[in-house]
């Protein structure tokens, strides 16, 4: 690249995706219909735990327009839903989980029958006519009671324990022995919903031995594999298409029973079958996140040197293991050292079944919980030591010269510069002014606090040698693929095995390919989310799409460019090594006027005017498996005001400095941080999935489950540093989950800071007015 043309990578290009979205012309799952299509509605359990005594579908079958009703007993072919984690040396209890319950139901919403008919409304009417007799069993919803059991969610297991798993490094006992101060806190990461605004849906079309299935999914390739396995079909006969997908946040990283069921029904009836979830259904059955009861102990010397950190997690998995359920808390364990040099770190995880909706990956997936354990406990320690929490952080930061840095648990952080992000944060946050304002507000009865979170996270999932069957135990390689096709005219199509659903990678990936091919991003089309096009892929989750999928595209585009250089050299009678991309041409070094555009090269390639022995055409495929994960990091500050009379907390300011490596498109990065931070503010202040002790869901709609709205939030102040990752040639790390991973601790720390003058020194999320007011009252009582 010469100085005459600025690279496209690094520019805040507005998105290629947007024209169809802003005009209402995008095509989401519920916008697709097929001739002869039937609608499906599910009959779901109102009981949290019960035996199914009988199912009488006769009235439903007589309902006008109804074609069939199926129950679990009808699904005699096919296997149970998958759980794809088998860590070496660890027993994971994994009871069978079917698309339709067979003998018993384990949580409210568990499906027991499916009704198929001509009309969207009619099948819902008919589903209400299916008479199911239940014999209720005692439900268990509190994980701390469940682990003691009985009652057991799965009687045949004789326990509610799913598994035990530990990651440790260093001498924990010695570390606590050396500590002069130890803080010991009960830390709750409560249950939340993914709550993508688009509810899930699926359309299955089985015809002449082949299945095409559209689903609002993040993982079309995984879904194709499991549909083929569960339905006994060849993968060549299954095509899965993720159309426009209206947000995922992990909740669409799944192989759901409804997806398998729709395909099974379509094959059974020889008709296309469509199912669209209602929000009320989603609140019952779309997998949820978090739900840890944790105990965090941090030990330090008087001077602030942290000597040991131990976290014990009781993770509530709900009623079944979904595809990655028991792995999720372990993702947090990998970064339980945070940004700090701690000689001994240990995470002990116990998974437990309860009669609630299953949990699995939700934005951050184990890492928001980990940051919360680390950063809240660290500020508690600072208070105990009487030390400034930022000074305590700086004292323990892994210094920049230590990277790549191996932490106590053996995990190797790729790159980092934690002082730099914190320095940058403090350029935006004037602590002296903050203290002055706080005093002024105090006289008005408003209590203001500031809290921080300096985090690192692990993302860019790959590398297969670590995540795979012999390593962590995920039963898949997590590499990524790319295919770059230059058309006759020089237009470019990039096929990615990732499946973005709002992140903007159609734009970012076009920028990556454009730089390497000497074209404008506007002529690079990015195709994703369709297993019928492009190579096998590993989809979108774990902030992997750019760091792994983007790098695959970069490498693939370089392969294409290498072939183009050979063709240009042949045509211009130069040496291939003397040809380079200069602006919009492949040109001879030092003679930019002597060159060919990509369109010229493609013309030669497809006409067969290529060097002796070279194949015609201009298209390449790449599979990329990185050597390591990537570790984005950052420093966040949150300012809150509390009204002590009502307990109401308001976020006044939120400042975030993030480092996700080399920025591909800053506009998109900022967008990811905004959304990620609000996801965590939601968890900290408003959102909580609640069940009563009988297992009845109390937050069954968006009326009861409080998502943050524009009215509660401030605008955000963002900045960025760029510490490239050495793992990939882009230097990129990933940013999709960073905001969510960082923010709940910053909000909680800010609230505790605000409440200290009122005698409250610690509080757990969700920081609802009731809980905050209660804590203030309790502290008052304690002081009397």
């Amino acid at each position, binding site marked *: 690249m010469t100085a005459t043309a600025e690279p496209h990578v690094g520019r*805040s290009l507005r998105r290629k995706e947007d024209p169809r979205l*802003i005009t209402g012309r995008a095509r989401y799952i*519920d916008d697709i219909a097929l001739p002869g299509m039937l609608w499906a509605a599910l009959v779901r359990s109102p009981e949290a735990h019960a035996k199914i005594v009988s199912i009488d579908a006769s009235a439903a079958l007589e309902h006008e327009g109804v074609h069939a009703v199926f129950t679990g007993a009808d699904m005699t072919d096919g296997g149970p839903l998958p759980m794809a984690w088998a860590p070496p040396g660890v027993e994971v209890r994994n009871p069978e989980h079917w698309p339709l319950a067979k003998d018993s139901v384990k949580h409210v919403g568990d499906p027991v029958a499916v009704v198929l008919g001509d009309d969207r409304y009619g099948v819902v009417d008919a589903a209400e006519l299916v008479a199911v007799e239940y014999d209720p069993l005692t439900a268990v919803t509190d994980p701390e009671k469940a682990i003691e059991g009985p009652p057991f969610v799965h009687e045949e297991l004789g326990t509610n324990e799913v598994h035990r798993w530990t990651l440790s490094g260093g001498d924990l006992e010695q570390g606590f022995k050396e500590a002069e101060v130890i803080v010991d806190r009960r830390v709750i990461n409560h249950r939340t919903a993914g709550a993508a605004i688009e509810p899930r849906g699926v359309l299955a079309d089985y015809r002449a031995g082949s299945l095409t299935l559209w689903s609002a999914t993040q993982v079309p390739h995984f879904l194709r594999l499991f549909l083929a396995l569960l339905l006994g079909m060849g993968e060549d006969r299954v095509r899965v298409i993720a159309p426009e997908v209206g947000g995922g946040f992990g909740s669409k990283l799944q192989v759901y029973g409804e997806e398998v069921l729709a395909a099974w029904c379509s094959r059974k009836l020889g008709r296309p079958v469509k199912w669209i979830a209602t929000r009320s259904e989603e609140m019952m059955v779309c997998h949820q996140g978090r739900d840890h009861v944790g105990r965090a102990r941090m030990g330090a010397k008087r001077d602030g040197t942290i000597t040991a950190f131990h976290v014990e997690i009781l993770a509530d998995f709900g009623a079944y293991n979904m595809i990655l359920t028991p792995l999720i808390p372990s993702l947090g364990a990998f970064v339980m050292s945070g940004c700090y040099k701690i000689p001994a770190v240990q995470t002990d995880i116990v998974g437990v079944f309860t009669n609630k909706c299953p949990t699995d990956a939700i934005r951050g997936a184990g890492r928001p919980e980990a940051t919360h354990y680390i950063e809240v406990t660290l500020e508690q320690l600072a208070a105990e030591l009487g030390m400034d929490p930022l000074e305590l952080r700086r004292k323990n930061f892994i210094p920049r010269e230590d990277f790549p840095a191996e932490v106590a648990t053996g995990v190797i952080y790729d790159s980092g510069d934690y002082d730099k992000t914190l320095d940058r944060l403090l350029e935006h946050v004037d602590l002296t002014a903050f203290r002055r304002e706080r005093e002024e507000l105090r006289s008005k009865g408003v209590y203001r606090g500031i809290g921080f979170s300096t985090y690192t996270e692990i993302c860019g999932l790959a590398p297969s040698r670590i995540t795979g069957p012999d390593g962590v135990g995920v039963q898949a390689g997590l590499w990524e693929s790319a295919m770059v096709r230059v058309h006759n005219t020089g237009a470019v199509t990039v096929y990615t095995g990732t499946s973005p659903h709002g992140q903007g990678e159609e734009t970012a990936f076009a920028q990556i390919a454009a730089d390497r091919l000497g074209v404008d991003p506007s002529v690079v089309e990015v195709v994703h989310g369709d297993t019928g096009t492009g190579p096998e892929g590993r989809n979108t989750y774990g902030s992997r799409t750019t760091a792994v999928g983007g790098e695959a595209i970069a490498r693939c585009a370089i392969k294409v460019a290498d072939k183009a250089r050979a063709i240009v050299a042949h045509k211009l009678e130069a040496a291939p090594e003397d040809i380079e991309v200069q602006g919009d041409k492949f040109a001879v070094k030092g003679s930019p006027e002597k060159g060919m555009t990509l369109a010229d090269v493609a013309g030669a390639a497809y006409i067969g005017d290529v060097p002796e022995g070279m194949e015609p055409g201009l298209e390449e495929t790449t599979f990329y498996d990185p050597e390591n994960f990537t570790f984005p990091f950052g420093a966040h500050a949150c300012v809150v005001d509390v009204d002590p009379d009502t307990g109401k907390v308001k976020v006044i300011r939120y400042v975030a400095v993030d480092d996700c490596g080399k920025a591909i498109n800053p506009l998109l990065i*900022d967008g990811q941080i905004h959304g990620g931070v609000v996801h965590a503010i939601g968890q900290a202040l408003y959102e909580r999935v609640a069940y009563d002790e009988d297992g009845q869901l109390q937050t069954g*709609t*968006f009326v009861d489950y409080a998502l943050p*709205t524009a009215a509660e939030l401030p605008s*955000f102040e963002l900045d960025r540093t760029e510490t490239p990752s050495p793992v990939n040639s882009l230097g990129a790390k990933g940013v999709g989950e960073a905001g969510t991973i960082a923010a709940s601790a910053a909000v909680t720390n800010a609230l505790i800071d605000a409440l200290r003058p009122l005698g409250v020194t610690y509080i757990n999320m969700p920081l609802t007015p009731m809980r905050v007011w209660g804590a203030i009252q309790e502290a008052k009582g304690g002081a009397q």
Partner: protein
Amino acid sequence: MPRTVPVRLHVNGVEHRLEVEPRLLLVHALRDNLGLTGAHVGCDTSNCGACTVHLDGRAVKSCTMLAVQADGAEVTTIEGLGTQEQLHPLQEAFWNNHGLQCGYCTPGMIMAAAALLAENPSPTEAEVRHALEGNLCRCTGYHNIVRAVLDAAKTKGATIQEEVSA
């Protein structure tokens, strides 16, 4: 067959005569009967606002009203607001300011914002935030949505090809 009733809807300037079940929601009449799939359904309790359209110039949640209640009314959906060739200032501003990610809430968000600007052409940030309280977005944290609405109010949609963020 369930009993049906006739309904006349003027949608985006075109008159449609439909025979619908009295219980048919307006959003389903628009989406399933007329093929206007820009209005989306994100909840069943009128919270999310993804289905927002204009009824006789006012923003309404089309999942919370029956098609028969809209008999004779003028309905404008996102498809009637602007075209690919001639975007509405709000559509342009949402694009320029990265006011959308997955896009699912976007049609409703834009229609709600258009109703706000029709009433209050120069709103403050607080007024924009208050006006969008009935529209949920899980992707953007609302930051760039608010920026887009303020930008549309200020520029009336003057195109900014590229905008470099902080």
